[in-house]
């Protein structure tokens, strides 16, 4: 047993951290258009979008632990970009694994070069966890699918060039069920409108409507009826999504935590630094514990994944526990700063609004805890009303 990062992993952390501190922390990005093309170019040059993509498409080998390190360090610089990277890995890996060769060749180089951006269209106004009840349909007609429906919220949906869409192919398909497609968002029949959220402001979630959108058959990802499986393997219900959302939250809360530690030494009350009051120092101690435990909780299932071992339970644990703790750490940092922490001049209020998103993006607490319970208790733990 060895609880440490390898030298290569430490080097990677340092390189990403240097980039994040130099290029992200010092600049102010309020919305997506504030990210210059040169930044994406730089990130792609550093290989940030290429990890684990086959080398024939310009990819770079990397372990899952490497990807975790990258997301954690980027989150310390800019949480929106960390989220963009998480989605990129999901989209890129799904494409590399499941798209037809010509589609991969057409899209993947631009994705790894940071020129194009993908998104995932999964949930609908009436279908979240219960994806089987989705109403978006894809009907096969000759050599294309005709897609109609509504997806919301789609992160980066306003800026994305295409979306990985899940639709029901229940009628008239060889394999009834949910199927995944790559849908370029400039296709006729696609319209999108922004949905304003309280945090992750650069991710401009969209409501995307598909009105008889014709998608050629070769844009299908995987086989008919494989949609939910692919989503669990690569997409928003994947172990990777759960762990990376947890690491992004932990990265963000470490920034808040560090500021709270400094402030506790600078701010005085009753003639002494507030760090000397146990009401403050104990919270800092508690939060340090949550961060330390959370980080190891995240890196272990990534390591398990690297060993091709099952990690479903551990990943689900990261998803609910670390995101919740990250919220608490940031909230404490804000409160330790008192009324000053409450203003927009300090980063805490936006961090708190940002981190809240990961409690949902990683999967709802109820869904994740059910996964854990199922692993611990067995099938007996699944209420009979739940159909998978």
């Amino acid at each position, binding site marked *: 047993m060895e609880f440490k990062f390898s030298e290569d992993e430490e080097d990677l952390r340092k390189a990403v951290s240097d980039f994040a501190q130099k290029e992200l922390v010092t600049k102010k990005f309020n919305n997506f258009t504030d990210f210059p093309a040169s930044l994406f170019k730089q990130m792609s040059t550093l290989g940030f979008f290429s990890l684990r993509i086959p080398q024939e498409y310009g990819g770079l080998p990397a372990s899952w632990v490497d990807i975790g390190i990258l997301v954690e360090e980027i989150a310390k610089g800019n949480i929106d970009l960390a989220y963009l990277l998480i989605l990129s890995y999901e989209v890129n890996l799904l494409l590399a694994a499941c798209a037809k060769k010509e589609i991969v060749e057409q899209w993947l180089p631009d994705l790894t070069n940071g020129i194009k951006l993908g998104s995932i269209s999964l949930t609908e106004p009436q279908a979240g966890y219960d994806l089987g009840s989705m109403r978006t349909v894809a009907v096969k007609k000759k050599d294309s699918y005709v897609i109609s429906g509504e997806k919301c919220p789609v992160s980066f949906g306003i800026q994305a060039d295409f979306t990985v869409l899940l639709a029901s192919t229940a009628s008239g398909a060889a394999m009834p069920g949910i199927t995944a497609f790559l849908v370029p968002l400039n296709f006729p029949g696609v319209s999108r409108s922004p*949905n304003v*959220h*309280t*945090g992750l402001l650069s991710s401009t979630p969209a409501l995307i409507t598909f009105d008889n959108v014709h998608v050629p058959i070769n844009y299908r990802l995987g086989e008919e009826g494989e949609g939910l499986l692919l989503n669990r393997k690569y997409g928003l219900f994947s172990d990777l999504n759960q762990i990376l959302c947890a690491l992004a939250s932990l990265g963000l809360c470490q920034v808040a935590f560090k500021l709270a530690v400094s402030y506790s030494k600078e701010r005085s*009350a009753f003639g002494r630094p507030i760090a000397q009051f146990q009401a*403050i120092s104990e919270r800092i101690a508690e939060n340090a514990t949550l961060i330390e435990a959370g980080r190891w909780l995240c890196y272990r299932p990534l390591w398990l994944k690297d060993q091709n071992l099952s990690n479903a339970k551990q990943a689900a644990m990261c998803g609910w526990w670390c995101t919740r703790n990250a919220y608490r750490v940031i909230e404490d940092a*804000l*409160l330790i700063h008192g009324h000053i922490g409450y203003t927009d*001049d300090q980063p805490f209020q936006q961090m708190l609004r940002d981190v809240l998103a990961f409690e949902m993006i990683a999967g709802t607490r109820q869904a994740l805890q*059910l996964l854990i319970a199922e692993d611990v208790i067995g099938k007996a733990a699944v209420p009979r009303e739940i159909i998978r």
Partner: protein
Amino acid sequence: MIYFTEPQKRFQKIIRNFARNELSEGAQERAKMECTTQEILKKLAQAGMFGMTTPAKYGGNPQDCVSIGIAFQEVCGVDFSVFSVMLSQVVLPLLMQWASKQVREEWLPLMVKAEKLGCFAQTEPDCGSDASAIKTRAVRSGSYYILNGEKTSISAGMDSDVALVMAKTDPARGVKGITCFLVPLRIPGIDRGRFSDMGGIPSGRAWITFDNVRVPVSFRIGGEGEGFTKVLNGLDFARVLCVLTAVGMAEQTLREAIEYVKNRTVFNIPICKFEGISFKLAEVATLIEATKLLSYQALKLRDENLPHMKEVAMAKWYGTTSISSCLHELLLLFGWRGYSTQLPVEQRLRDALGLRIGDGTAEIMKLIIARELLGKEFGPIV
């Protein structure tokens, strides 16, 4: 267990109807505006919402403390934008009791009608919880005091016409050297600016600077050195009203969440059929109820002129912390809808966080409780 009296129940019914009929529409938009509109102020004044601490001879409609708590829970819970302007009436009893006749007759009738608004200025950049450390100075010069200093984090500071300012007249005497003044804010030497906050936006939290501001001696409230003790009493009241406002917000959100979970389905059944959802609501309702009991207990003690500082402190830290976590949980129940700005929950979560800090942090509340439990000799080191 606190039972409301018949008159209190009638009052609650009237105020609840008033709030839900007159204030719920547009409340979500007003929560993001930078001030309270004249129209809303007038509506509240007509409903008697500014005169609850003032005798009829000044135009008020006095209520007991429990009823005032009810009003805050019902009104500010539905429309948080009016909280800070309504809260300023807690200092009016100080004016009635200690201000000169001239000041009372000039200001009280106007404040009761919300034609003039007031605020309370104690916190300074270098001192929040530790009131004895304030640096603002008031130096007597003939029939005036000359004020210099900076106050910060003043709720309703931007919209107020007058402030109750704590200043040191005798710096050598610590809290016993603090004197209280009523300072009209539209006189020379005063500057102020707005904080840009994550919540409580209509409160117009402000900093105010005093540069050789001349305040007539008749505007001193009470004697020199009496400021701190007099104001402390009003602070206790304000703290409970903060908590009941938070309770009102959480109750409103709980009602909305109950509607939502009955209508939202998974696998063709309402999500509230799952314990992961329904028990969460049960927990939230329990925390709200516990907070209410603590708060009304404190107000009842206050009505009976019994000691209630410890009970107030318990309600303040436990209540605002609990409500904040209730709103967090309720937001998550709404999923991404709760996260969007279309629903009022995210703003309420941000507003409620401010109530944890304003008028006394959890640490100060626990300090008060611990001192009462242990006695001054064994109390925490400060």
